[in-house]
């Protein structure tokens, strides 16, 4: 009898177990991709006890301003305490770097730059905690985007040519992009550009004959550069150094230097670049692709990648670049760079933008706010329990990526960002990002 009872109970447990295992995968299939963990479960809003006396400040890279502006506004809106001020992306990455390194009390609580601080280099740091510059700062990827090569060639604006371009966008090889920005290719109808764009043709009458010829005009290419210190320039030149090493030896953020009689206008930020390309005929420039998408009159060229395929910058191709990267680490440019990676759908000019903040936060509440905002910025929303602001709203910083022209950080990078944030401490060496704060 006992045996029978045990057997029955055993059977019942087994049946229950089987049913449960059948149900759980079904639930999992509909569950969101991100799970709220032990830190977020206590919610990422600012508590009264940890609120800063004034909104903390974030600024720098204009590359990331399209995603950070709405994301920070959302964070501020769902907080009842003081939290974070509007993002200031008017002056570029150098502004972000300098304003966190230039004074013992940084002018910005968190700076953003498209290239992180190194232990050696041109950055200055007015006081030293430990050795080296970068060792004083926590630096983490916050946004993933692509650098679009934008152009404005009025001769291509006819409806017939626009139809052709809709099928086959204007395509440039990496070498051509390098030569254009080095002013070694100076005309739009350069033989090599026409050869790359064989389908882009017009029929013209020469005498009695009708001949088909390259639709690109015999017009001077006006290169537009960002002002010195631009992180987008740094990301772009890192790419150029891989595809045109003769003209661009290494990555730097200096302006593109004039090598012919044609002047190179310089613009202060990404938005100004998009405006300038739109205003200047036969111009070419480079900007985070979200900016190009929202500016009418600015066209985006396809770039031939390392696998020989012409690709446009978009969410799929930029994500493909991030996925193709192996061994990402923060320590060196070679480990960080996503440029010119192999893969058919990889967009070749892609990179992360980084947040920079002091590892030792002398003002504890400012520090707590900074790490909470950054944790929010570097994750995607999803699962959660009703009643917690973020989980209820379901929106984290990376959820803004797709709608603003970026790609959400890969899961491995989200984890990396979390681990880096866990190194930020107060003056008593206490970790600021934890469940009780």
């Amino acid at each position, binding site marked *: 009898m006992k045996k029978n009872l045990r057997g029955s109970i055993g059977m019942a447990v087994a049946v229950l177990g089987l049913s449960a295992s059948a149900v759980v995968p079904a639930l999992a299939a509909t569950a969101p991709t991100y799970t709220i963990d032990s830190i977020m479960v206590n919610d990422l809003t600012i508590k009264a006890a940890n609120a800063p006396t004034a909104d903390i400040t974030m600024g720098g890279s204009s590359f990331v301003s399209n995603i950070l502006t709405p994301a920070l506004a959302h964070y501020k809106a769902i907080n009842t305490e003081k939290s974070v001020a509007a993002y200031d992306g008017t002056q570029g990455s150098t502004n972000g770097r300098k304003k966190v390194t230039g004074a013992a009390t940084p002018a910005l609580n968190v700076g953003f730059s498209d290239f992180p601080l190194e232990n050696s280099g041109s950055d200055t740091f007015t006081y030293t905690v430990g050795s080296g510059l970068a060792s004083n700062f926590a630096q983490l990827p916050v946004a993933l985007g692509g650098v679009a090569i934008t152009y404005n060639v009025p001769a291509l604006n006819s409806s017939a040519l626009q139809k052709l371009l809709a099928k086959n966008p204007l395509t440039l090889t990496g070498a051509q992009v390098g030569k254009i920005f080095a002013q070694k290719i100076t005309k739009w109808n350069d033989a090599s550009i026409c050869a790359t764009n064989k389908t882009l043709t017009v029929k013209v009458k020469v005498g009695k004959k009708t001949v088909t010829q390259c639709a690109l005009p015999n017009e001077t290419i006006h290169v537009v550069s960002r002002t010195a210190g631009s992180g987008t320039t740094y990301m772009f030149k890192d790419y150029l150094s891989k595809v045109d090493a003769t003209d661009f030896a290494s990555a730097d953020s200096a302006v593109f230097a004039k090598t012919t009689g044609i002047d190179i*206008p310089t613009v202060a930020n990404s938005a100004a670049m998009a405006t300038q390309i739109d205003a200047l005929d036969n111009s070419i420039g480079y900007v985070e692709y979200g900016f190009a998408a929202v500016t009418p009159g600015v066209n985006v060229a396809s770039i031939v990648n390392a696998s020989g395929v012409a690709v446009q910058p978009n969410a799929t191709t930029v994500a493909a670049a991030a996925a193709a990267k192996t061994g990402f680490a923060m320590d060196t440019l070679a480990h960080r760079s996503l440029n010119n990676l192999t893969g058919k759908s990889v967009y070749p000019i892609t990179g992360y933008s980084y947040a920079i903040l002091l590892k030792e936060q002398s003002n504890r509440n400012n520090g707590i706010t900074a790490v909470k905002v950054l944790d929010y910025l570097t994750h995607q929303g999803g699962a959660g329990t009703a009643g917690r602001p973020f989980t209820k709203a379901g929106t984290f910083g990376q959820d803004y990526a797709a709608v603003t022209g970026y790609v959400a950080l890969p899961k491995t990078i989200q984890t990396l960002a979390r681990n880096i944030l866990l190194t930020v401490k107060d003056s008593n060496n206490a970790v600021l990002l934890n469940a009780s704060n």
Partner: protein
Amino acid sequence: MPMDQSTTSTNAAGDLSNVSSSPKFNLAARGDGRYNIAMRIGQALLAIFIIVFFGSIIIQSIPGWQSAGFGFFTSTDWSNADFKFGALSLIAGTLVTTFIALLFAVPVGISAALSIQFLLHRRLRVFFSSLVEVLAIVPSIVFGVWGVAVISPWTQHTLEPFLRDISGGAPPFQGEIYGIGLLLGGLVLGVMILPTVVAVSRDAFAMVPQTLIEGAYGLGATRTQVLFRVALPAARRGVLGAVTLGTGRALGETVAMATILGGVTNKFPSSAFDLGATLASTIARDFLEATGSQVGALGSLALILTVIVFAVNYIARKIITRQAVML
């Protein structure tokens, strides 16, 4: 008389022994003393501020002079990133854009002031003068973006090709057309200084004695003759002051010029179509990047700009004061 003088001086010194024993008088005398001390402190603070301001700019600029030497004024190659400090192209850019601005703003501004003061009905006068003054409160960056996004396609497609064609490509209308650049910068600056020119020259026209105007009409002068042969000459110093004040504003304009000129700092302008930069726009653009002697070089630019702007404003004040005394 000598006795009066000694009494006055005693009072001013606050010595109460020789004056009336009235409490009211005592209070006034004490108040005078305090007022004098407050005034002296105010003056001293102002003097200290001015000395500190100029002193700090001069000290800041010393490394710049040391590293560039006389080449600062003779070289046209400015590249802060490469430690090349030749300010000639920037000084030229500043003067050229200001000159173009004046070519536009002086005739337009003076005509506007004349018509507002003499030709419009009183109610319309208030409306139009406040309309012009609205331009003065538009932020500089708005002018910059307006210049690049709205006006530069027009200069690129219409104005600059027209000028090049009509002049046959002769200087200063030769070379590559960009739309943005010195000509557009000058025109936008002209619009920006228009409110200053209009407001100050209108004040000068308002000070022209009515008897002069009426006398001229009485002698049978036409309206045009009254405006250009009587009112304008009578107010010429005030108008000159208006133009000089406008010039001061144009020389120091920063954000709009940083947006419109194209930021080319290593080329002495040879054409109105050229890209360029001004002293002020270069300081604004390079400052965030600068460290060490680069900051010093920017300090030198600041000193040059300050001297030019102060000189222009000083001349303007002198001219306006003389006009007021004459009338």
